[in-house]
């Protein structure tokens, strides 16, 4: 019933529709689960009749699975923010994780592309779930025990990467989301005229995930990440950490045998796990280049930015052609 331009099932699309009854979904899930085809259920639906009707159907699937079949698999339930709050909260009794899609990072785009949706209302519902999850955790009750997540569509509107990451930072900080998923808008059959004719490169989605990781586990702020690219867009050719390092060479090189953890985390090519291993190992031994090569498969990328007992990048860090030297043109992992 909704008319979201980016969705193949929107009201104005001519795609043939099908729907399952609650019992059909329950039976399929149980039978697939028994054969170990699946370990859980990702439950989602287009709007049928109304938001409340649809949300109730989703909730009933989860409830039946748990109550009548003792289903112990994972249930991720895509909640409908336009549904009544008590329906969403009923769902939280049965699902492992509730999620509500933010869809687009800017309210204006939402108004244009998804007329039935409303940014503040979506945020409200997220805030509601966040409170209930927190209360339940404090009171040791079960309510959406695996937290809350969301999804944003990338490339269907004009939002740049900085806009997207700002929205994510808000969601992680103020709504305590477990994950924000980025989904590059992909061509669909029966596309709407409101959409850009060509999808964004999938690499954009990949870079956003990397940036998301940098915010959550590497101590980068949105502004720092945004500054690594150009005009609010991340560099598509190189990862955002390397891009930031190339623009902030004064910070480097960092000595692996003495550098602080926060600084080692900023070295391109060193992951969080590698850094943690370095911190532990260096209490017992002086680390050499060979040692670092064992901890990361990207030593070449890291080398200009770090010092080991037997390695100094000397002038390398400041060379004008450093970017070319490290970023050997290769196929991106996402085509």
């Amino acid at each position, binding site marked *: 019933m909704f008319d979201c331009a980016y969705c193949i099932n929107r009201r104005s699309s001519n795609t043939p529709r099908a729907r399952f009854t609650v019992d059909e979904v329950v039976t399929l899930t149980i*039978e697939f689960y*028994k*054969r*170990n085809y699946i*370990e859980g259920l990702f439950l989602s639906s287009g709007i049928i009749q109304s938001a409340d009707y649809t949300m109730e159907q989703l909730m009933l699937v989860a409830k039946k699975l748990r109550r009548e079949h003792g289903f112990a698999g994972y249930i991720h339930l895509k909640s409908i923010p336009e549904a009544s709050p008590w329906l969403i909260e009923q769902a939280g009794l049965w699902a492992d994780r509730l999620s509500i899609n933010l869809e687009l990072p800017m309210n204006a785009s939402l108004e244009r592309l998804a007329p039935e949706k409303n940014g503040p209302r979506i945020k409200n519902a997220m805030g509601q779930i966040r409170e209930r999850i927190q209360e339940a955790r404090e009171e040791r009750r079960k309510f959406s025990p695996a937290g809350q997540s969301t999804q944003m569509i990338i490339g269907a509107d004009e939002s740049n990467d900085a806009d997207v990451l700002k929205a994510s930072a808000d969601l992680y900080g103020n709504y305590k989301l477990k994950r924000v998923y980025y989904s590059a808008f992909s061509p669909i059959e029966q*596309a709407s005229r409101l959409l850009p004719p060509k999808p964004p490169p999938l690499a954009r989605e990949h870079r956003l995930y990397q940036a998301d990781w940098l915010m959550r586990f590497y101590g980068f702020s949105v502004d720092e990440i945004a500054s690594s690219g150009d005009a609010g867009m991340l560099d598509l050719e190189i990862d955002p950490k390397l891009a930031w390092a190339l623009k902030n060479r004064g910070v480097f090189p960092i000595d692996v045998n003495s550098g602080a953890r926060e600084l080692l985390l900023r070295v391109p090519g060193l992951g969080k796990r590698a850094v943690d291993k370095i911190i*532990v190992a260096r209490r017992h031994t002086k680390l050499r280049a*060979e040692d670092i090569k064992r*901890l990361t498969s990207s030593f070449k990328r890291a080398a200009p930015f770090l010092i080991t007992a037997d390695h100094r990048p000397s002038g390398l860090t400041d060379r004008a052609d450093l970017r070319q030297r490290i970023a050997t043109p290769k196929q991106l992992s996402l085509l």
Partner: protein
Amino acid sequence: MTDFVVALAEGADLNGFRQGLRRGIAQGVAPEAIVWQVGAEASLFGQTDVSDAAPVRVPRAAAALIDLVVCHRDPERYALLYHLVWRMVRGERALLEVHTDPLVWRLERMAKAIRRDLHKMHAFVRFRRIDDEAGERFIAWFEPEHFILASTADFFVKRYPSMRWSILTPDGSLHWDKERLTFGPPGDPRDAPAVGDIEGAWDVYFQSTFNPARLNVAQMQKEMPRKYWRNMPETKLIPGMLQMASSRVDEMISATPQPAIKRDPQKALAKMLDTEIKSLEQLNAIISASEPFVRGGRRAVIGEGPSHPDIAFVGEQPGDQEDIQGRPFVGPAGQLFDAALEKSGIDRSRCYVTNAVKHFKFEQRGKRRIHQTPTTGEVKHYRWWLMKELELVRPKLVVALGVTAALALSGKPVTISRARGTCAFGSQAGLITVHPSYLLRLPDEDARAEALQLFVRDLINAKASV
């Protein structure tokens, strides 16, 4: 000096390794002097003189590493592990922290390979159903990369406790009969059914989850490595799906947008947007059909009384009697409430009476159902309904009876002694007083009489204010 031989069984022989380790370390045998002999011949040497060797104490992390690495197919695994422990007991106690040490690094990589193999086996085992005299039974043939069958047993028992199943592998088999787990000899792929009963449905599902526009072959092969393909029915579809991907995407991009056939189903749209609850009956039907948010009573006790009354009273939750009769304030506290109303000259039948929480939360102790105070979070779950209810009932004044009602109405914790008296719940005129059950709990007769007097005074104030 002859070699020091440790006999080991095929596969992951954790026990055999442990025994060899104890003997070796106890006798100070250097790593290069040990022969780790795996297989039938080796067993001739027997597992003798074990009892006299003391266990070797290693940090927990090392024990966990050993558990994993013995599952590896690398024939050097036992020698490498022995070498690790040898160095640890000879001064390098913290060796495992030196992640850059070549031996530690190699063992950690082996452990990682095992964890990955376990993870893949958990995901990629495919059961096929057969029916025998005892009902349905599920059989899978699987080829793990390493000797991990025994290590996966707990996982599968936990996932499928109430199903009869067998997992057959070239290294052994696992059988679960809903009660007992048994290990058996290596299986044969022909012992599992050749086709699954609902694989057709699974194929359709698998194909429909594939988005050709998001094809990433490298990522796909990382998630589902080819070595596991031959025992997974859905993988036969992958080549065809990949082949069609680019042409399907081109078609989608080049297709001109089609105008919608059915543009504006006005009536359905109007109905969709109109989700507002319009009557108390409608709301009560929703509440009655809903799952309780508290542990205990299954029946919802909804409010009662006329619409647009002067006063609506909000209590905490139904108690034992209320749950049985399905009406609010009919138990001991309800009787006291009635008496207090009478004293203050209020006609209950002209008031609306309801509870903040609509279900009786209790703990069963023997035959008795002991009342439990709802938590803040539970009260909030019910708050939407209470707000909607009062919006529909539209009383002039809302009286909160007790701390739970006050919390529900104001949305934040309230102390009765401080907040007692008239107040506002948002734009709604309100009054906060005690819950009648509080009076029942007072042990001292005089105190109770005094408290009742104060309660009646609050009720008189309520009446006077409307």
